[in-house]
């Protein structure tokens, strides 16, 4: 009964005070005013009979947001109850609520600081104390520039540092870390001298570092974290704590060690060059080397979390001296006290001595020289073998981080890259695919520094038989960038790639591409083996190979690409090779380069032209693009005669330019599309229908309305298909879109008679204008004389007037408004996609029983698509007009390179029975929603629940075609009974 009553009271309070806020019409957001919120809470808390009850109320209360203006009242009420409350848990909740409330946007918590600090003095429970300190921390971080408040908070924290409860000490340290800069400002200049530092209050750093020795590991961790926090906030950490931090590396607790590793790393980055003594000897080394050694040591820590962290951090220590760096890969082997060579060394020697194959005899790795027992250092002081350990670790997380660290270090040091090669190649045989993949990627990244030896290449190539497609493709990618040393290597690679091709025919494209680069990279190595590759004979004619054989094409791709920079090579070709060249150059132009062939004038001539465009003309093309834009921008009124022709020509030019110059394709297309919109708009406005009487213009209407729709579509394409747009361009696009919408509105008004309908459309339009104003306020100066500007000027009138007047106003503004010129942004890329698989060439229908599903493999590459996981969809269009949209799993997207995404997924098809096989269309779509463009959806201020907050904008969702459709032959058979 009591509960019911309470509910009633609450309901009444909220009912009376419901107010519709005016600004946001569509959302119809409810807002509770101050008295109701705090009063309701007050009543609730007063009524609560038991602490559990009160807690329940507070929890309920916390689920709803509170407006900035009512926060203070609520805080007062909470504080009042805080003092009255005897139950710890309730006080704890109140304290946490205070913190949450102070985070409310637009509320300045300085008015509650005093009260919050006061509560601390009387508090007995340690848990509540800790929570209160947390609240103070939040308040403090809300008021970063109130020095006095912060100083007070720091004093409070220092006072409570001596608490016996670890939680309180933790929070105090956290507070010091987040706020403490005041005692010792960052800039030394503000110090008046040495005297200033001897103030009674010690500087924050030494206070915090005292707690490095605390008895509680949690407090030790908090102390280090606080120190790291100081560092993150830009405060210079003193070098003096280095020794303390190093001691903590051998702490008993993993979280302490983990934090300490970070601390040591931070210090090594801050003071890389300062000199530290080596204990137990009087030598000195650079701090970065010392800390590198220490972090290396942590790679063999007992806890894998620490190991992962240590391995990761090693990768970012680029200043370390090469001597130490190379030690990380060093592992002296020993067998029965005799020095033994590692397998890597043996492989290298075998290679050097020219002997092939190894390990025929037992004990060919038999140890040779005797090791001096006193010289063997079993425990690695310092960096020795850190990566050797890391790469052999039990946990794959550690191995992956070690591989990544190796990569990062190798990129900055070529000699190290050379050394770590063997180890990376070894990782190709890891048991976990992720690690294998990662090491292949890493090797690709550092491949500029290295040349593979034959035995290494052998190991690398062995992976080509892997059944995982990702691994194989990563390896192809790697081979594209690899340098090899001998012609045997080329032959080996070719043989293995061909083997791969026969085993996995789907790899065709990837293998060809790989051979293209391999050939282009090593023309001189390919040259001596050309006769063998093409199986030509000096005297005898050999049979002509089958032109459709993928393996033969692969060989040709290799040879032709090598021949490009090796003019002597074509002399070795036989007749049919030339014929095949001509065929391949045509059919696989992306794989086969243009060759200067003797006696083939006709191809040579056309080739010269193309190559002329290729190299030096980027700049001129860019100039051309600029010129055309300037030419167009000279037009002020598109209705002048000749203007439209000029536009049309420019559009044509731009489109052609885009085809010729791939670098500028994005920009050119973008401009062309934009101009096309303008052209359409102008044409539509010039139609006679505006002067015609309403009933007569129905036919014309159709034409104009298609134009309007087309413009709308194009603007969406402009906005979402191109990446690299700046706000100004987006605003321009929106302007055009508004124009198109205005056009539509006018058409509706003219063709439809009912005022009600027009009313709705008008409102919608006005909202659009408003949202434009909201979004692009700063861009408005660029829009002089534009449609939007004029509209905004007229806005007060527009909102007041009747729909029909509105339409009239729009009509005149549309005709008067100036055409906005596009300022070309730096880099525009057009999102594009190509479906590689299915090819659409197959004549064999995919047969399946109707009603059941069949899986269709789809393999596509996407370029310049932002956030493909959420935007790219697959559309399947059946002959009967049914269309399905399929969302691929996020895991189906792979990123082989920057800006490129590969989608390999399966699409499930199903249909009822057909009498004969028919084609379906598969294509990729780009989904967009207009609300997801630049506006950030404001999140509820301080808690997780979203109820009562509908999304602010009704978003327009749609899709753009991203790729050409591919036809697939399918045949659902009726079920046999």
């Amino acid at each position, binding site marked *: 009964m009591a509960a019911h009553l309470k509910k009633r009271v609450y309901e009444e309070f909220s009912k009376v005070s419901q107010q519709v806020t005016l600004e946001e019409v569509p959302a119809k957001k409810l807002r509770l005013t101050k008295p109701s919120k705090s009063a309701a809470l007050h009543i609730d808390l007063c009524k609560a009979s038991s602490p559990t009850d009160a807690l329940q109320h507070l929890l309920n209360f916390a689920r709803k947001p509170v407006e900035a203006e009512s926060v203070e009242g609520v805080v007062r009420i909470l504080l009042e109850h805080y003092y009255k409350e005897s139950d710890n848990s309730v006080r704890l909740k109140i304290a946490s609520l205070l913190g949450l409330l102070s985070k409310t946007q637009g509320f300045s918590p300085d008015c509650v600081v005093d009260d919050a600090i006061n509560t601390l003095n009387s508090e007995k429970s340690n848990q509540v104390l800790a929570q209160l300190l947390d609240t103070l921390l939040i308040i403090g971080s809300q008021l970063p520039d109130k020095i006095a408040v912060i100083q007070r908070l720091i004093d409070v924290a220092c006072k409570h540092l001596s608490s016996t409860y670890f939680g309180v000490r933790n929070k105090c340290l956290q507070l010091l870390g987040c706020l403490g800069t005041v005692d010792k400002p960052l800039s030394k200049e503000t110090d008046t001298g040495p005297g200033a530092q001897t103030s009674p209050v010690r500087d924050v750093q030494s206070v915090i570092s005292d707690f490095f020795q605390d008895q509680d590991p949690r407090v030790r961790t908090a102390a280090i974290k606080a120190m790291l926090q100081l560092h993150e906030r830009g405060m210079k950490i003193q070098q003096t704590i280095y020794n303390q931090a190093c001691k903590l590396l051998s702490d008993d607790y993993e979280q302490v060690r983990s934090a300490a590793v970070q601390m040591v790393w931070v210090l090594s980055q801050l003071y890389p060059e300062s000199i530290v003594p080596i204990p137990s000897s009087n030598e000195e080394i650079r701090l970065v080397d010392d800390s590198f050694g220490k972090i290396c040591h942590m790679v063999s820590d007992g806890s894998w979390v620490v190991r992962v962290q240590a391995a990761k951090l090693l990768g970012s220590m680029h200043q370390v001296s090469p001597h130490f760096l190379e030690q990380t890969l060093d592992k002296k082997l020993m067998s029965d006290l005799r020095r033994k060579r590692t397998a890597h060394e043996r492989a290298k020697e075998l290679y050097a001595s020219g002997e092939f194959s190894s390990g025929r005899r037992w004990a060919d790795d038999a140890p040779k020289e005797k090791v001096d027992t006193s010289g063997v250092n*079993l425990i690695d002081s310092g960096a020795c073998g850190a990566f050797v350990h890391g790469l052999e670790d039990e946990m794959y997380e550690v191995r992956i981080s070690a591989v990544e660290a190796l990569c990062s270090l190798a990129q900055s040091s070529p000699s190290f890259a050379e050394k770590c090669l063997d180890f990376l190649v070894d990782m190709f*045989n890891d048991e976990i695919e992720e690690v294998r993949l990662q090491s292949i990627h890493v090797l690709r990244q550092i491949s500029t520094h290295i040349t593979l030896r034959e035995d290494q290449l052998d190991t690398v190539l062995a992976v080509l038989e892997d059944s995982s497609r990702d691994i194989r493709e990563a390896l192809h990618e790697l081979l594209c960038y690899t340098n090899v040393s001998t012609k045997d290597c080329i032959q080996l690679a070719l043989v293995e790639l061909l083997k791969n091709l026969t085993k996995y025919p789907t790899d065709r494209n990837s293998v060809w591409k790989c051979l293209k680069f391999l050939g282009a990279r090593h023309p001189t190595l390919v040259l001596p083996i050309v006769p063998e590759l093409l199986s030509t004979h000096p005297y005898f004619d050999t049979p002509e190979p089958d032109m459709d054989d993928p393996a033969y094409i692969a060989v040709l791709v290799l040879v032709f690409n090598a021949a490009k920079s090796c003019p002597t090579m074509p002399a070795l070709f036989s007749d049919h090779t030339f014929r095949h060249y001509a065929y391949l150059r045509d059919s696989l132009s992306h794989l086969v380069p243009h060759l200067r062939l003797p006696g083939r004038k006709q191809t040579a001539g056309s080739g010269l032209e193309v190559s002329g465009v290729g190299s030096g003309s980027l700049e001129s093309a860019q100039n051309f693009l600029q010129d055309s834009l300037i030419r167009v921008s000279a037009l002020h009124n598109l209705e002048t005669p000749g203007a439209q022709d000029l536009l049309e020509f420019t559009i044509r030019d731009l489109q052609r330019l885009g085809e010729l110059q791939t670098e500028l394709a994005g920009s050119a297309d973008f401009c062309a599309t934009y101009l096309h919109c303008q052209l359409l708009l102008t044409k539509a406005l010039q139609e006679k229908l505006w002067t015609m009487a309403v009933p007569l213009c129905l036919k014309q209407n159709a034409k104009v309305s298609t134009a309007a729709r087309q413009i709308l579509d194009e603007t969406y394409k402009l906005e979402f298909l191109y990446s690299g747009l700046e706000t100004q361009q987006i605003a321009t696009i929106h302007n055009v879109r508004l124009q198109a919408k205005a056009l539509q509105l006018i058409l509706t008004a003219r063709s439809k008679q009912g005022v009600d309908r027009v009313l709705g459309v008008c409102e919608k339009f006005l909202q659009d204008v408003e949202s434009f104003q909201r979004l692009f306020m700063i861009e408005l100066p660029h829009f002089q004389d534009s449609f939007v500007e004029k509209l905004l000027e007229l806005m007060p009138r527009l909102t007041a007037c009747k729909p029909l007047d509105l339409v009239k106003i729009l009509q005149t503004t549309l005709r008067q408004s100036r055409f906005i010129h596009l300022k070309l942004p730096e880099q525009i890329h057009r999102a594009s996609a190509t479906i590689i698989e299915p090819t659409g060439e197959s004549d064999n229908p995919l047969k399946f029983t109707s009603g059941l599903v069949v899986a269709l493999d789809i393999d596509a590459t996407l370029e310049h698509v932002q956030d493909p996981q959420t935007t790219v969809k697959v559309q399947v269009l059946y002959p009967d007009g049914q269309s399905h949209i399929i969302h691929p799993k996020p895991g189906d997207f792979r990123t082989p390179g920057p800006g490129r995404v590969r989608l390999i997924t399966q699409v499930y098809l199903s249909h009822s029975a057909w009498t004969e096989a028919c084609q379906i269309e598969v294509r990729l779509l780009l989904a967009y929603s207009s609300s997801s463009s630049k506006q950030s959806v404001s999140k509820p201020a301080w808690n997780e629940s979203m109820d009562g907050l509908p999304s602010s904008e009704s978003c327009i969702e749609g899709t753009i075609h991203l790729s050409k459709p591919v036809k697939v032959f399918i045949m659902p058979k009726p079920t046999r009974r």
Partner: protein
Amino acid sequence: MPEIRVTPLGAGQDVGRSCILVSIGGKNIMLDCGMHMGYNDDRRFPDFSYITQNGRLTEFLDCVIISHFHLDHCGALPYMSEMVGYDGPIYMTHPTKAICPILLEDFRKITVDKKGETNFFTSQMIKDCMKKVVPLNLHQTVQVDEELEIKAYYAGHVLGAAMVQIKVGSESVVYTGDYNMTPDRHLGAAWIDKCRPDLLISESTYATTIRDSKRCRERDFLKKVHETVERGGKVLIPVFALGRAQELCILLETFWERMNLKAPIYFSTGLTEKANHYYKLFITWTNQKIRKTFVQRNMFEFKHIKAFDRSYADNPGPMVVFATPGMLHAGQSLLIFKKWAGNEKNMVIMPGYCVQGTVGHKILNGQKKLEMEGRATLDVKLQVEYMSFSAHADAKGIMQLIRMAEPRNMLLVHGEAKKMEFLKDKIEQEFSISCYMPANGETTSIVTNPSVPVDISLNLLKREMALGGPLPDAKRPRTMHGTLIMKDDSLRLVSPEQALKELGLSEHQLRFTCRVLLHDPHSDTDTLGRIYTHLKSVLKSYSIQHVSDGTVIVESIVIKVTSSAEEPNLKVILLSWSYQDEELGSFLSTLLKKGLPS
């Protein structure tokens, strides 16, 4: 001083017959109970008569702990428990408990059925023995009795291998058994927390070896197998049934899977199938990869590896066969070897060490013609490869374990004396802890310094806390006053008052009195007044009272002045202080002896 005594009955400066006796805190524990592969006589088993000449062992041993299922660690168990006689608990991990009897039974069969030995333990004895086993879980602390507790840690090496921590009070010993610090294809690496035992007993098989990365070896192995199979050859891999065999199986299985190979792999049957069954069950004991993927597919459910049948050896085409025994001295592996030896396309890979005299040893040394029984000779044309896969920690691994556990003393077993010597030096040099390496039967005593726990009364602690600084400072020791009561096997520290109360004693006060002669011309009361003012000026922070009955009281010290009868100027100052104020009292007496300022 309390001490821990360790006596190896086997594995002291030797490999095989692991059996170590440990006495710690009045408890006797036997660690492992293995047999020696090299002997067929009495030396095969540890000499249990060292423990007692006659009668059963039960009353002399508190528990027996078996680290893993290898016969050199558990082979003598039924002999000890059933034939010598032991009824106490035997601890081993679950996988060990499951697999151990299979191996023991096999061992029994070979010795009794094949070699015809008598006076050996029977199948029933193995069963009876296994009934005494108490299984252990990893990281589970098991209370053997009220004081003795044991805890198992993961050791790698073979499935179910464990390191054991034995703890009595604050004294503790860690026994590693055999362990491996680098993970392999089916097992993880050994791990222990920073338990700081008084003694770490470690194996030291590879005390003088630092091994190369495992990956190179694996890669070589796979490459060789792959090449042979591609050539159409047959590969024979002689193995022992348990341990390495599973690792190699996994290695080949995953490789076949990865590379999409089709050639069949066979495993000659026998106890392997039973053992594989247990490997499937004890997934939690394997490495990260297997543990993570077993939900989709249990790695030990081999897709490509099938049971071998004698007739398959003559099948055409490539194949890989695992066959027992590992040294090619008898059985199926030798049979297959004879069939395949003539073809140079084939290959045999020896994955382990071979004893002298076996066929394995001969071919590894490059012998091309083998004499078979019946004067026949066999031409060895097939390729012979050697590939070592062993799962013991190398020197670096041992050092790493020491660094992990931070023991106070080290003891090496399960290794050759010469190699141990080297490692011992290194350990002493690098960790500066003492290291021992007793021979069989030799006892090592390690003096421990156990901490004695004392209960302190809360009141006393709080009072002390209130006196001193706010927090106990870990860096500085603090002294406190209290009374230590030793009663009924418990130690308590309480405040003196409480002690008196508890013991029913009345408090005695001990006071010191002292006379100081002082020349002072003033009257008694004046002198006292002057003393009062003097003290007041010297001892500023003490409470000093001038009581009307002619005394000055400083804290608990009473000062009186009387003039001597003979000489009025000579004043006798009477000082009296209690024992607790001894310091202040003696200070005052010396101060007054110096006289008063005029």
